[in-house]
């Protein structure tokens, strides 16, 4: 196990060093060998845009591996897992450097299969892991098939499979080739990113995967979906007509709303985080779509601003979601459950992990001086500055995008209040939560490092913003001079509105000191600690506490048409009289509307089709001869 972790960390550190060098100097790292892959050989070119994603994956990889040292259970210490984990992290680092179609698809598939194996490591002990793995396998292979067709379409029409050659020649392709390649790429990368309606594997695979693996998948692998979409849309195809980007924005807004709605109503902590990944991917897609839409109508500065916002959100989302998944796994390991309704009182029992979870949740809710705020603010700025545009597509899309972003922000805040309030505060709701102890130092270090990054990125975004701007410029090939306002502030030249998170942090510290100082001066008597007021009742037990399910219930009611909760009330009466109730049992469940209305009928239809097909080859030699005869007749008729 230690060998595997050391190897992985070494790979991540070398990836980080190379990525930092590329981001800093702008030189492109190139590797070509003809030996490793048939036909074309392995071809890797790391530009600034790819280097950004390599750096993010390396950052998540290092923290997840440090965390993994202390992580027990979930079958992650098996030999298979120890072998596959370094492979998975390495593919995460290599995918953004692939520079021809074969290399890209090879690494992409390697990443999909290694992550699938890691999701499945615990399948012997828990049956739901197998089902989650099945969903993930189907969705990821469906996406890979779409990618294969899309990229091969581009390669055959441009006559070369190298990305550079495709990018140079793609402008002269017929519109239908460009359009279908883009839509196929959107489907393929969207399924990996967890975009609605291809998100169904996320809320199944993430909760069942071991903690470090779900952190890697949610904070690093999902980003590569965004990477691929921007690489194909802006890089290989060099931008496109407005309808592409309107499609991306629509799906982004849908993902953001659907994801945040489900995460606000889930009571399974890791399922909640998985849906929140869908929500954040939606915001990234909103940024990417807005950027493309601006570029297609000639608003170059706004296009760059929107892309920078989306890429910043990629980086910041990786930091807070990685930390959230890692600390949620710590909570799960300490309490033995991931059901929020069985947690509670954990901030006091696990102060460090609780604080890490709290800080990264606040970053997810886009609270100022934490990372999520900067990227969402920039995204909002980009979309708001598009409002005065004369172009009808922008005039319609931007207000809807702003509305979706605003509603998502509110729902995310609700999610965070629920997760922290129910999970960390109050009294423990189960013996597991009551007996929880703080986890080991390496787990705290791994999650804490990422939470610290959230704070650093939020207070001093200038440590990453220049690199992100350079990455965005390198992929869109725009030459907007001096894009950054610079210093402590964040904003683009040519767009009004700047943000100074450093000053905000300073103001916050001053305000807190002032309030605390005033209180201390004005306080006449020392504070008195008494029991929480519970209407004077003798016994206060955890069953009287608010639960995550009840917290989400009003929202479930408001959005009943979308969420369609299923209620089930079983009442049994005593034998003598039906006026006396013997026992009552209430059960409520909330499953995914897309799963129920699209995927379930599709899988039933496929099963029916399969059963029908199985009837054809029944083993009778006469029937096979008849088939041969019919086929021969058909061939003769067609040819003759």
């Amino acid at each position, binding site marked *: 196990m230690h060998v595997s972790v050391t190897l992985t960390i070494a790979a991540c550190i070398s990836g980080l060093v190379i990525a930092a060098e590329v981001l800093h100097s702008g030189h492109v790292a190139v590797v070509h060998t003809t030996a490793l892959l048939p036909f074309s050989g392995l071809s890797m070119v790391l530009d600034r845009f790819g280097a950004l994603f390599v750096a993010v994956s390396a950052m998540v990889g290092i923290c997840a591996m440090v965390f993994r040292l202390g992580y027990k259970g979930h079958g992650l210490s098996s030999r298979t897992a120890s072998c596959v984990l370094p492979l998975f992290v390495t593919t995460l680092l290599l995918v953004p450097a692939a520079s021809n179609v074969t290399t890209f698809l090879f690494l992409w598939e390697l990443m999909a299969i290694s992550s699938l194996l890691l999701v499945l490591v615990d399948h012997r002990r828990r049956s739901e892991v197998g089902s989650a793995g099945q969903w993930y396998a189907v969705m990821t292979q469906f996406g890979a098939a779409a990618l294969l067709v899309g990229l091969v379409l581009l390669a055959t029409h441009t006559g070369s499979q190298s990305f550079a050659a495709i990018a140079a020649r793609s402008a002269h392709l017929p519109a239908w080739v460009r359009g279908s390649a883009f839509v196929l790429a959107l489907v393929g990368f969207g399924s990996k990113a967890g975009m609605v309606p291809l998100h169904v594997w996320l809320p199944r695979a993430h909760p069942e995967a071991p903690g470090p693996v779900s952190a890697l998948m949610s904070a690093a692998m999902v980003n590569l979906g965004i990477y691929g979409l921007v690489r194909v849309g802006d890089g290989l195809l060099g931008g496109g007509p407005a309808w592409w980007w309107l499609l991306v924005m629509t799906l982004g807004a849908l993902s953001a709303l659907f994801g945040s709605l489900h995460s606000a109503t889930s009571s399974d902590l890791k399922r909640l985080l998985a849906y929140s990944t869908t929500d954040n991917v939606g915001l990234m897609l909103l940024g990417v779509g807005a950027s493309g839409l601006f570029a297609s109508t000639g608003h170059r500065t706004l296009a760059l601003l929107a892309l920078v916002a989306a890429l910043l959100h990629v980086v910041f989302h990786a930091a807070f979601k990685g930390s959230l998944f890692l600390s949620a796994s710590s909570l799960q390991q300490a309490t033995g459950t991931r059901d929020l309704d069985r947690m509670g009182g954990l901030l006091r029992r696990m102060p460090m992990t609780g604080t890490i979870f709290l800080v990264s949740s606040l970053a997810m809710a886009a609270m100022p001086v934490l990372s999520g705020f900067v990227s969402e603010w920039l995204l909002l700025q980009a979309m708001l500055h598009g409002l005065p545009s004369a172009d009808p597509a922008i005039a319609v899309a931007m207000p809807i995008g702003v509305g979706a972003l605003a509603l998502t922000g509110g729902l995310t805040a609700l999610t965070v209040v629920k997760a922290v309030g129910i999970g960390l505060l109050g009294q423990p709701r189960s013996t597991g939560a009551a007996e929880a102890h703080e986890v080991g130092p390496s787990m705290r270090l791994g999650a804490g490092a990422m939470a610290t990054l959230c704070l650093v990125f939020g207070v001093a975004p200038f440590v990453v913003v220049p690199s992100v701007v350079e990455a965005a410029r390198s992929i869109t090939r725009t030459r907007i001079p001096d894009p950054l306002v610079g210093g402590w502030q964040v904003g683009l030249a040519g767009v009004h509105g700047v943000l100074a998170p450093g000053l905000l942090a300073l103001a916050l510290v001053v305000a807190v000191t002032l309030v605390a100082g005033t209180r201390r001066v004005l306080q006449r008597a020392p504070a008195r600690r008494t029991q929480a007021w519970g209407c004077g*009742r003798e016994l206060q037990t955890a069953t009287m506490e608010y639960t995550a399910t009840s917290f989400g219930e009003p929202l479930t009611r408001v959005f009943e048409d979308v969420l369609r909760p299923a209620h089930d009330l079983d009442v049994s009466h005593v034998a003598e009289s039906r006026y006396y109730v013997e026992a009552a049992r209430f059960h409520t469940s909330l499953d995914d509307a897309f799963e129920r209305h699209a995927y379930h009928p599709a899988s039933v239809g496929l099963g029916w089709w399969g059963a029908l097909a199985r009837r054809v080859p029944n083993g009778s030699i006469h029937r096979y001869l008849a088939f041969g005869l019919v086929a021969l007749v058909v061939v003769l008729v067609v040819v003759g």
Partner: protein
Amino acid sequence: MRFTALVRRLRARPVALPPADPGAPEIQAAARRNRGSLQLRHVDAGSCNGCELEVASIFSPVYDAERFGMRLEASPRHADGLLVTGPVTRNMADPLRKTFEAVPRPRVVVALGDCARNCGVFRGAYGVEGAVADVVPVDLEIPGCPPDPQAIITALRGLAGT
């Protein structure tokens, strides 16, 4: 009561009341602190509900105690003190202590009615723990079984400083 008398009572302005009773020095200190606003949490520690009827009536339009700045609070956390009625029964002793603990300091406790003062007719009954003063410290007692609304208002006005 005759019908016309009832109509006259209903049409009457709030009852004119005698001036406030300044009370003992501690009560006067509390009145200076309260400055015309007295928020009380009512605890029924085992009353026969006779006192409750009188408490309800002082907040009726006839007596309108709210014009003297006094209100009943829903939570002891928001209250200046407790208004306790009835003898303290065994089941209510602990909740009374907890409610008292929940009131922020400085706080006052008013024992309303003879039962609250000395258990009244329930003295020695098997379910009675004792008078209010046996459970929590009492600052002001209002005698009567039940006390007259005017007497309640006069006493509480002293506490409110109005």
